[in-house]
């Protein structure tokens, strides 16, 4: 039997203090019935003797202290799970918000999950082809990885994430990805972009969407990624699906966390974010991976906007310390009209090395990657020199590198947002661009690969669609 209390004593921000309660557990789910019959949900943040501090998910507006009826549920926040969740849209509390009716649950799980035992983890090494050269070729994504997109306001991160969700597949296999999408405090338009994108391509059939918009209660954003990830864990490790989880925008999530921390009058850490931000974020990001003996996997692509494009801001900083690399979008590239504007030098995939090479992508992948990277770095250095000393001061070599860097951005990084390049095309494209250099200049590539690919038919026949480039080769 659930006891009902009308002993609320204090409200501050989203926090409610209830007195004279008994048998209350930490992190217990609470229902708050307002004087007008509206029911809101909350969670116990702290209990001391007979007092409980509750955070209310929908906020406290309109709540009347003596009238509010508080009912403690005797359990944590749970989500009802079923394979039928695919193709559905849910609100910030996991309730269906499309017209598809209630979900009939197979089981219920606490949304906080439990840490995966490191001993049973399987090291991610299965290459995912996203069809995007700057990711597949240079910052390779593998199944079970958590690879965030660090973006800024006005950059096309949504477009990129949607493209990945649409195109992602594993070489030589026809397995479908399920997509779990959690929107935290994004605008209606942005959410609509994802939904209509998924609808257009039919991906919506394989997707479960959790939506909290910018004008929905901020506090809901704390629970939403956890619900999404609980769903993903269920689909991956119970139902054997390969799940891609997109979380956007983590910056809004962190701000919600800061809001609660401030309301609780906690000692703030950097920039007012709570000292436990790292631990809290890791509880989200670490719920990606593979488990020995389980078919499915969880691959995470969190998106966050860096305030002022500052990578050292606590949110991208702490995220980078937890995730296995990062894709960084750069404004200067966008201004040059390059999509996706991936800053290749600052981006990184930590799990790349075990996901590429013979049997995974192609034998020459690592070598080509290193060579392209080295040449591009030289080109950017030459560019910097040209800015200071003028192009006249460049040596012939420098000019060659400079031209390479431009082509590299124009043809390799740049691609259409519907262009799905397979990995072999991406690799051959790399070779094509490297043909600007003599064979002997390709020091990072093994001789056998140069023999095999430098003059191969595939590379020679590859058209870049620009007469200007063909001439320069």
């Amino acid at each position, binding site marked *: 039997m659930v006891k009902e209390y009308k002993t609320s004593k204090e409200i501050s921000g989203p926090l409610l203090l209830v007195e004279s309660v008994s048998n209350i557990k930490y992190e217990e789910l609470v229902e708050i019935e307002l004087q007008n019959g509206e029911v809101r949900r909350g969670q116990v943040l702290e*209990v001391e003797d007979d007092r409980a501090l509750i955070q209310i998910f929908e906020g406290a507006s309109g709540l009347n202290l003596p009238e509010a009826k508080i009912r403690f549920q005797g359990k944590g926040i749970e989500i009802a799970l079923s394979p039928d969740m695919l193709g559905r849209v849910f609100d910030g509390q996991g309730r269906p918000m499309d017209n598809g009716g209630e979900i009939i649950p197979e089981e219920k799980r606490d949304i*906080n999950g439990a840490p995966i035992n490191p001993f049973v983890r399987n090291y991610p090494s299965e290459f995912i082809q996203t069809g995007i050269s700057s990711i597949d070729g240079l910052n390779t994504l593998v199944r079970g990885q958590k690879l965030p997109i660090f973006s800024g306001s006005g950059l096309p991160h949504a477009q990129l994430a949607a493209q990945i969700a649409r195109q992602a597949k594993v070489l030589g296999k026809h397995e479908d990805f399920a997509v779990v999408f959690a929107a935290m405090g994004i605008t209606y338009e942005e959410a609509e972009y994802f939904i209509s994108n998924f609808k257009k391509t039919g991906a919506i059939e394989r997707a479960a969407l959790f939506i909290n918009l910018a004008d929905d209660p901020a506090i809901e954003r704390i629970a939403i990624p956890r619900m999404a990830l609980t769903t993903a864990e269920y689909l991956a490790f119970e139902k054997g699906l390969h799940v891609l989880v997109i979380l956007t925008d983590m910056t809004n999530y962190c701000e919600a966390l800061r809001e609660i921390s401030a309301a609780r009058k906690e000692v703030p850490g950097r920039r007012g974010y709570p000292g436990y931000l790292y631990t809290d974020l890791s509880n989200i990001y670490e719920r990606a991976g593979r488990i020995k003996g389980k078919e499915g996997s969880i691959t995470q692509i969190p998106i966050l906007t860096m305030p002022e494009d500052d990578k050292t801001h606590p949110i991208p900083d702490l995220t980078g310390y937890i995730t296995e690399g990062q894709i960084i979008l750069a404004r200067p590239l966008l201004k040059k009209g390059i999509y996706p504007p991936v800053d290749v030098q600052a981006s990184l995939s930590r799990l790349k090395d075990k996901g590429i090479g013979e049997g995974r992508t192609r034998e020459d992948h690592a070598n080509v990657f290193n060579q392209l990277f080295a040449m591009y770095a030289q080109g950017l250095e030459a560019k910097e020199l040209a800015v200071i000393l003028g192009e006249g001061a460049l040596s012939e070599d420098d000019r060659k590198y400079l031209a390479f860097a431009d082509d590299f951005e124009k043809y390799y990084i740049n691609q259409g947002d519907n262009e799905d390049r397979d990995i072999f095309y991406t690799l051959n494209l790399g070779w094509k661009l490297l043909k600007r250099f003599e064979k002997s200049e390709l020091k990072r590539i093994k001789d056998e690969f140069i023999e095999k690919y430098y003059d191969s038919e595939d590379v020679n026949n590859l058209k870049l669609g620009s007469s200007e480039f063909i001439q320069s080769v």
Partner: protein
Amino acid sequence: MSKKEVKGRIKKVAGPLVVASEMGNANMFDVVKVGHLKLIGEIIEIHGDEAFIQVYEETGGIGPGEEVISTQAPLSVELGPGLISTIYDGIQRPLKKISEISGNYISRGIDIPGLDRDKKWDFKASVKKGDKVSQGDTLGTVEENDNITLKIMVPPGIKNAEIISIKSGKFTVDQVIGSFKYGDKTKEFTMIQKWPVRKNRPYKNKKPPIAQLVSGQRVIDAFFPLAKGGTACVPGPFGSGKTVIQHQLAKWADADIIVYVGCGERGNEMTDVLNELPELIDPRTGKSLMERTILIANTSNMPVAAREASIFTGITIAEYYRDMGYNIALMADSTSRWAEALREISGRLEEMPGEEGYPAYLASRVASFYERAGYVDCLASEEREGSISVIGAVSPPGGDLSDPVVQATLRVVKVFWSLESSLAYRRHFPAISWLNSYSLYYDNVQDEVEAKEGKEWTSMRREALKILQIEDELLEIVRLVGLESLSQSDRLILFISKIIREDFLHQNAFSDIDSYTSFKKMFKMLDVILYFMKKGTMAIENKIKVEEIAKVPAVEKVARMKLVSEKELKKIDDIKSELDKEIENILDKVEE
């Protein structure tokens, strides 16, 4: 001797902090079982009859009124056979056993001993009835695996004991293997010692380190060496390769035993270590590297209080092996996460914060951890020496070295490997800056290194460092006025320093051959490069241009030195004579 049971009731729950009342009889730092789930916690403050408890597991579902029972012992680890090759969580629970009990996820309230109770070990007594023994003396040995012989020692604090009985044979860790009498007390002993993690294990005396810990990483071994018994710190922003360096050291450092503490880091990284180590072969013993490694994994999503304990668990295990006379290297990745755990708990205790919200005692905690490293005379009647080297990674926000954890660490450690993102962007790995890093151990280990590797090493090392230093100044000039303004000899320095950077300091951790370089090979490599410098200087004096020198075919050979296997080191020596010939050729051409 039965103690009175100490039992209290939960009063307050706030995250990992639980306050219990009616705990007046409890001792500070006692381990307690909290609530109906029997979560493991530790008393960290006592006010009157209220005890403040940090709980090592998530506290959801626990509430006021539930029971708290004290175990009346501080947080301890079990020391004995079976530690090697095991992977533990932050409070020494074997993760493999946890997975057998609770499946893929770590559930709460699991209480399993650190050492396997079923496995039998072959104990060989080395003392006999009537022998007198004191603390640290060997009672007998157990072959823990092919590499490690474990000494079963008299626990610290026992002096002049007389052996009453002792037997060799196969025993489990908790079976009695003998007894001794000291004073008027008789005590039975097993192979286990229990030791509180927050208390240093005693030793006779500490000595300054004298031997180099060879890591197989050229930039470290050549320029910024670590001594056996020394301390080092690796700060750097994310993506600069801290973890790779820690992994490389765990794989190749010439310590007898490695304790690797993954403290608040990624789960997949621990999996990587777990998968890789068993397959790698120790170049010195020819055995799998896992056979000398103990892993402690408290990943970032595991409970924060256990993270705080994890580095103490690690160092206590290290001290145990040190007491047997082994050299241990302990890696802690990352101490920033440990400091954050301290901060989180301090915040919950509502303590007055110091810098950046860290507690005011941060620096003293950091110092007391690193001070447990060292080169010591072990506690035993016989002569016995052991060492613990500690390498701590630090992850400062945004790579900013003014971070309190970095500053507190730099005050105590003697080696600083500064990782820089600019190097990482250029994919120069290990991204250890040769300009900002330092090691204060070279003077300590100089004698030993010179005796082992050759007298010339000290001056070679100094010269190479000097070339890099001058390069930095020259590049500044080039940036301002262009390359043309430099003299030929300056350009030669730029040419040689580039070779040092790209062909010597740059090392590929993922290449089978390049991953580890012996001191001998490193010596030869640097020797060839400096010989090149000498020859080049001579050529310039004969009016040869640097461009000409840079074209000699031997340059290619120099670049591939790192890929010469340890068995074919003569190939590196041969480069010198090739250089002689090729430079001679240029000189001849000029004379014509």
